[in-house]
């Protein structure tokens, strides 16, 4: 375990960048949801890293991390449910084919 906050933040930034790229580049709805999870977890990692290295933030950081996890879980649930519902109708997971509400 590294002793430097910077390395955790660097990892977090890397993970966030991967998530962002995935969200912007992938056309598969499931993959996009996964990318969102990745970004949320990157942020969570940054939060707990701050909590571990800054004593005054320790308690708050854990609480925020737990809240983010709960939100992420809820978001994933709802998102997946929507994707599955659309998939049943459209028979495709690709978001650029979901054009029914345009024009």
């Amino acid at each position, binding site marked *: 375990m590294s002793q430097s906050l910077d390395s955790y933040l660097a990892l977090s930034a890397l993970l966030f960048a991967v998530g962002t790229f995935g969200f912007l580049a992938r056309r598969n709805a499931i993959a*996009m949801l996964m990318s969102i999870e990745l970004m949320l977890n990157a942020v969570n990692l940054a939060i707990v890293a701050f909590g571990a290295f800054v004593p005054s933030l320790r308690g708050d950081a854990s609480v925020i991390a737990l809240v983010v996890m709960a939100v992420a879980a809820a978001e994933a649930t709802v998102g997946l449910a929507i994707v599955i519902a659309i998939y049943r109708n459209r028979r495709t997971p690709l*978001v650029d084919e979901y054009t029914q509400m*345009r024009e």
Partner: protein
Amino acid sequence: MPMELLVTLVLALPIAGFGLTALVGRRLGTRAWIVAVPAIVVTWAIAMVVVWTALSGGFGTDGLHFTLYQWVPAGDFTIEANFAVDNLTAVLLIVVTTVGMLVHVYSIGYMAHDPGRWRFFAYLNLFMFSMLLLVLAGNFMLLFAAWELVGLCSYLLIGFWYPRPSAAIAAKKAFLANRVGDVGFALGIFAVWTTVGTLNFTDAFERLSEGLAGGQIEAWAITGIALLLFCGAVGKSAQFPLHVWLPDAMEGPTPVSALIHAATMVNAGVYFVARANPLFSLSPEAMFVVAAIGIFTAILAASIALTQNDIKRVLAYSTLSQLGYMFASLGVGAYVAAIFHMTAQGFTKGLLFLGSGSVIHGVHEEQDMNRMGGLWRRMPITHATMLVGSLSMAGIPPLAAFFSKDEILGEAFKNGFLWVWLVGIVVAALTAFYMFRLMGKTFYGPSHVDPAVEPHVRESPRSMTVPLILLAIPAALLGLVLGLPFGAGLIGQWLEPIFEEAQLNLGLHHEPVQILGVDGVLILVSVAVATAGLAVAIRLFGFHWPLRGDDTEAQPERVAALTARAPRLYRASFRKWWFDELNDLLFVRLGGRVAHFIWWFDRAIVDGTVNGIGDVVQGAGRDLRRIQTGRVQNYALGIAIALIVMAGGFLIVTAR
């Protein structure tokens, strides 16, 4: 109450006749007159009772005033339908109902073959109602309503033969010219309301003169109100510069010309100025304008009448000229003379128009006097009655218009308006000339009637000749009955109390007439010039001497020679001093240009701005819509880029 009831009936019968004829007239066929004419005859009888009561002093000096109902109840602003019958109204009632009744009877024959006759009689009845309302009205608002109603009837009747484009255009022209005057009239009424807060004639005039005396109302305000109201009179009585509509109004059926455009409606302006005498007499400037416009119209119209060839147009210009006389008379403060002349002119001109209608009927709808001539043998009654009318119009004693015209000229001279008198004398000579030019071209000399029509020319039916005879009686005798002795006749006794206040305002006092002095000379001068004009016309256009039984032959070659000696003047008169052309240039061409520019401005600048804003918004929306793809990833990309820019900016700023 009985008198009030009678006055109400005078108004109710014509409007009822109008309603009935308009509703069921079409089914009555050739008997379309069956409601309309009896209604007017009864109206005439009732009106005569009212007139008799009024003139014998039954209503006192102030006349009969009564309110029928509250017309406009609007808080502080209330207008009542109130009527006033005084001696002035009574004199008007005589002319309106008598000529109206005779014209109605005459129309039975004149319109017998017209398929639209039910419409004609309905309009005539509506006109009678409007005109009677106009003379009976006791306040400005009611008068204005009647004023517009007679205008409407005039429009409808000028355009009676509306399939003819010239009739439709003439109707429009009359309506528009009247509208110009009525704008001023309406503004004048507004001004009266804002200045004194009442529209009742008696109250308004009283408060105006008290206000002027007390200093609350400025003198220029009085002049302004008087001139604005005079605008309406100029329009309705066809004075310069709005005179152009009256000659064209002759497109209407001849009974209409006689009733509306000679004997009654065109007198409305004269009547109104006389009615408003307490107001006008407060402003010497306004009186001057009235006199100047009147006498100018008189000479202008008389000079045009000299050369016109359409029989009805000559009479129309003659009407204009006589109306000019009346306004000149009002302007010099000779109110009684003006109303006297109006009465005399009403009967005489009504007679002349009905006579011309009989002639036109006789020669099968020909109005050009160059295609008439020698008709006196074929139409003896028409000829005799028209001769009486023409002599009266020319101012030959002892016929009606002689007395009234002479009184106007005499008063103008004695009240110090020498220029009015001078112009008036010239007009008197011209009047005698053009009336006998008309007689000569129509009735004397060789016949120029279309040979195909010539054998069928005969006297008109009884329903047309009887009104002519009945009208010839007042045209001949009215002056003797009302005008003698000079300056103290019946008409003066009736009307002088009404104009007393005005005479006082103007500082005029009634002098006894010196028949062996100045008045006698004036009478001699005016009779002399009238006779001279008449003699010249007889020399040039011919005459048939009834007692001697021989003819004075027409001399067309001398007429041609005279015309050739003053070609410019002849052309000016023949082309009516180019007033139609001037109006065309000013209002149709120049006004059209202005209107066209304004239209362009509206289209290009105003609409351009509004549409431009719309186009910009629409275009922006159309272009910006592309951004809204509905793809969440595009939005997310936008968020990411913005975030990077913001974070980068933050870093750069904090790094400094």
